[in-house]
């Protein structure tokens, strides 16, 4: 046995005791043992089945949850035969009104109802099929399933003598109201964003994409947190290979808890240590919807407003939802502006250092004289000065995120006045460097995807070092290596640099440019090739010159064309039902 393997023997992982095939449920009294570790407890809990004896079953539930006060169990007597029943719920997660309804039915409803037969099973059946006024009813047979239902805010009804429990939907999980996502604001476009509730988030998507083919696959991740995660896609549009890949990666996840979609991102992305994001994290519903319509997949996680979009390409990170809602030339202009700002934000400080210290002949003489004169009193080398100021800015930014809202103005005064103005006055930094830092800071915030902006910021430091050691040659080397890196990345097997990396000319209409909606005839070639056509070509708006088309009568009540003319009226999507019209986000 090699040495290292012997070494690992010393630190053997504690493994859950392998359960013998569970034909019998173990004795629930075991749970009283304080020596049980969490994995052992879970293992036992998983095997406990309902016995049919109400007392025992309730005992199991009490043993599982321990002394937790929010687990409320109400014991009642149902019907004339006074069958003992119990209603379990977690008080803060369930709707009081609905619970009371069920209670009423159990107590009074059962008394008044005509009862054909005696016996608990019949009573149970009667209650389930006739009396229960819950919108969603399920039957479960194990304690752990009851508990899972309770944790979602449902109530469980147990009958003595029946080894099944009825799960009634009484969900009232506290959530905040819909608000505009603060991290991704825009001028024109819908204001609502995702919230911390998975069901609400799915509903928001359904509101936008009403086809039944919007499929949601639910997975529960984290054996302690039991977080619901939904894989959302449009069936028939997303590639099955992609879906298989996503499913495989998601089902591979084995963690104790998923508290945020960042956990999932980390567990499923292609490159473990990539600085740039390989999936988009967004709070915007419209952004997710538009990605779904391109044949992509979204992963929504309960308890976080951030959804994941995958696969993505690098140019998608430069696309803001505004681009699609604004006029075309404006959208194109801003998209170019953002791309330029991105380059500026990673390259400018490095290029400044490189030019000033290696290639001063590249700078116009007047500018150079001024810069030299301005930094005459600066006691630091150029690279250190730039690095220092960039660090100061990062400090300010980080402090701005962390600090309590109430002392926000204080930090801005300290940041802007003390550090900026006083540092120049004291001759510690030159004004040119302050301008450069400010410029890079502003440009790095123009990137619509925040996680992308952060990544770019790290590259900036890399470029400052390259520029200060190797000059422009180093900058060029850095750009080349960055390009190679980007071209080598894959997002769920799809090339990251896509319409540029492998050149896809037909996708340029939504990459460097942004075509008007009527010209966006096809979906992205790689992701949406199952159903490439988005809108039939030649649908640009034009004046109706055709007399026949002009005289066509519109039946406004039926919303369809009454007389089928020779050519469909060009200004409207004649006869197409709204859900078929391939709305473009």
């Amino acid at each position, binding site marked *: 046995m090699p040495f290292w393997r012997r070494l690992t023997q010393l630190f053997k992982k504690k493994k859950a005791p392998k359960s013998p095939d569970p034909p019998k449920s173990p004795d629930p009294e075991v749970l009283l043992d304080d020596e049980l570790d969490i994995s052992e407890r879970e293992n036992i809990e998983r095997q406990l089945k309902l016995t049919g004896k109400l007392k025992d079953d309730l005992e199991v539930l009490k043993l599982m949850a321990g002394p937790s006060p929010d687990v409320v169990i109400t014991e009642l007597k149902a019907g004339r035969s006074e069958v003992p029943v119990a209603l379990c719920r977690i008080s803060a997660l369930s709707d009081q009104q609905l619970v009371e309804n069920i209670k009423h039915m159990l107590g009074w409803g059962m008394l008044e109802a005509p009862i054909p037969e005696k016996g608990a099973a019949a009573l149970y059946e009667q209650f389930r099929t006739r009396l229960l006024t819950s919108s969603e009813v399920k039957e479960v047979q194990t304690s752990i399933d009851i508990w899972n239902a309770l944790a979602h805010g449902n109530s469980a009804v147990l009958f003595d003598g029946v080894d099944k429990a009825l799960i009634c939907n009484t969900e009232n999980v506290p959530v905040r109201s819909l608000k505009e996502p603060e991290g991704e604001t825009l001028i024109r476009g819908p204001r609502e964003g995702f919230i911390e509730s998975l069901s609400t988030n799915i509903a928001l998507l359904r509101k936008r994409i009403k086809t039944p083919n919007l499929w949601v696959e639910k997975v529960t991740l984290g054996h302690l947190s039991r977080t619901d995660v939904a894989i959302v896609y449009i069936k028939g549009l997303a590639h099955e290979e992609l879906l298989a890949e996503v499913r495989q990666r998601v089902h591979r996840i084995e963690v104790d808890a998923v508290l945020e979609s960042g956990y999932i991102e980390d567990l499923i992305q292609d490159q473990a240590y990539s600085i740039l994001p390989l999936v988009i994290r967004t709070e915007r519903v419209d952004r997710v919807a538009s990605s779904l319509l391109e044949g992509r997949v979204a992963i929504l996680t309960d308890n976080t407003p951030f959804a994941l979009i995958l696969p993505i390409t690098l140019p998608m990170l430069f696309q803001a939802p505004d681009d699609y809602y604004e006029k075309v030339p404006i959208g194109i202009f801003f998209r170019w502006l953002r791309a330029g700002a991105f380059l500026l934000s990673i390259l400018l400080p490095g290029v400044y250092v490189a030019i*000033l*210290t290696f290639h001063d002949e590249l700078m116009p003489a007047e500018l150079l004289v*001024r810069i030299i004169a*301005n930094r005459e009193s600066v006691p630091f080398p150029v690279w250190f000065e730039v690095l220092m100021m960039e660090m100061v800015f990062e400090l300010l930014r980080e402090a701005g995120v962390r600090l309590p809202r109430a002392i926000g103005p204080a930090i801005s005064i300290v940041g802007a006045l003390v550090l900026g103005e006083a540092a120049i006055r004291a001759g510690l930094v030159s004004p040119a460097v302050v301008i450069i830092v400010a410029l890079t800071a502003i440009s790095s915030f123009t990137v619509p995807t925040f996680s992308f902006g952060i990544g770019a910021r790290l590259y900036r430091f890399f470029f400052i070092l390259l520029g200060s050691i190797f*000059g422009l040659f*180093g900058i060029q080397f850095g750009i080349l290596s960055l390009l190679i890196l980007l071209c080598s990345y894959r997002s769920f097997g799809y090339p990251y640099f896509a319409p540029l990396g492998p050149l896809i000319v037909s996708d340029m209409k939504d990459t460097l440019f942004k075509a008007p909606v009527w010209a966006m005839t096809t979906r992205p070639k790689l992701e949406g090739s199952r159903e490439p056509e988005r809108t039939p070509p030649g649908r640009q708006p034009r004046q109706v010159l055709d007399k026949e088309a002009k005289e066509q009568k519109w039946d406004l009540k039926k919303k369809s064309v009454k007389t089928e003319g020779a050519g469909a009226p060009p200004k409207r999507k004649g006869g197409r039902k709204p859900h078929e019209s391939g709305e473009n986000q």
Partner: protein
Amino acid sequence: MRRFAFAVILALLMLINTGCWDYREPGEIVHAIALGFDIDDDGQYIVHLLFPNPVSPATGGGAETGGSTENQPPTVTITSVGQTPMLAITNAALFIPRNISLAHVRLILFSTRLAREGLAPVIDLLKREPEIRLSINSVIVEGDIKTLLTSTTPMESSPAMGLNRLLNLGADVSGALFAGPILDEFVKLPRPGHEMTITRVTVLSGAKGDGGGEASQLQPTAMLNGGGAFLGTKLMGWLSPREAAGYHLIQGDLRVYFKNLIVPGTEDFFTVEIRQMAGSFKPEIKDGELQIRISVKARAAIHDIVGRSMEQVPVLLTDPDVTTSMRERVAEAIKEDLVLAVERAQELGTDIFGFGFAFYRKFPKVWAELENDWPEIFKKLKVEYEVEVHAIRPGLMFTPIP
């Protein structure tokens, strides 16, 4: 693994290929913006280097820190002497506390004396030195270079910058010989039958040296004054501004040019702006005789008409006969300038127009016979002129003020 090793090797190659030893802090360098070359009686080269003063408040340095830099002038001129032009520059390092960079030299000044003795050593330096650009201007200074460089120029922070701007912008309006990149002149040296010209600048009495005096009394320090015609690297003589204009007309690179002429048949003056000029020349051999045909096409715009009576101008521009005769008068005036320039160059015996070079390119076989005594042939070369003025633009005044 192999790929990783390859990447590491590439990254290490960067260390030896880029030369991080080229790292120079901007504070350690001082950039000369003008270089003046002169020669003294012992045959030693004198170099005047003009630097912007980094600690002067005028350039933006030291303003916030206060201290002792308040009285520093905006520019500093350092003069140093050496056996060769390069030695003269390097000797300056003995008393300048920073590294001298020549990458931002914008203007080269030659003294008249040096130009008459020959610029060869300096041109040799300028073409070899990797830092100096060849796209900068050069002038021959009539007067003292040091006085010019140390005096205060109105409207400019340094005399060299002022002169540079004068060369680039002012010259093409005045019609004086204007500067092009020094490379444009230097390429003529190895050519057969083509000689250099360099702009001549005359130092005026406004140039006082040593900072100049009160701001309210500032006077222009230098003026453009035609150009020098060279034979090889030696200055042979001057072209007057008018002859310089003729020279540029032939070269076809004059943009705007003003003339004051008499309206034919009257005693009235009119000032005309000649523009959109297209000048060219063609070498020809006619009946075994060499000749050059110069053709110039231009348009003209009237700027003013000054009658003798001072009360009203009698010229009627609606009359086609009048405009035709005026056009002819302008063409005649242009031709006069061409003739002046050509005759002056023939008198000096330097083929600044490149007539010989044109023959060399068009008739290479004939040139082989001409080559040795081309200066003599050039002096007697027959030149024909064709001048055409296309249109005359009257402005908004067709009829005289009543």
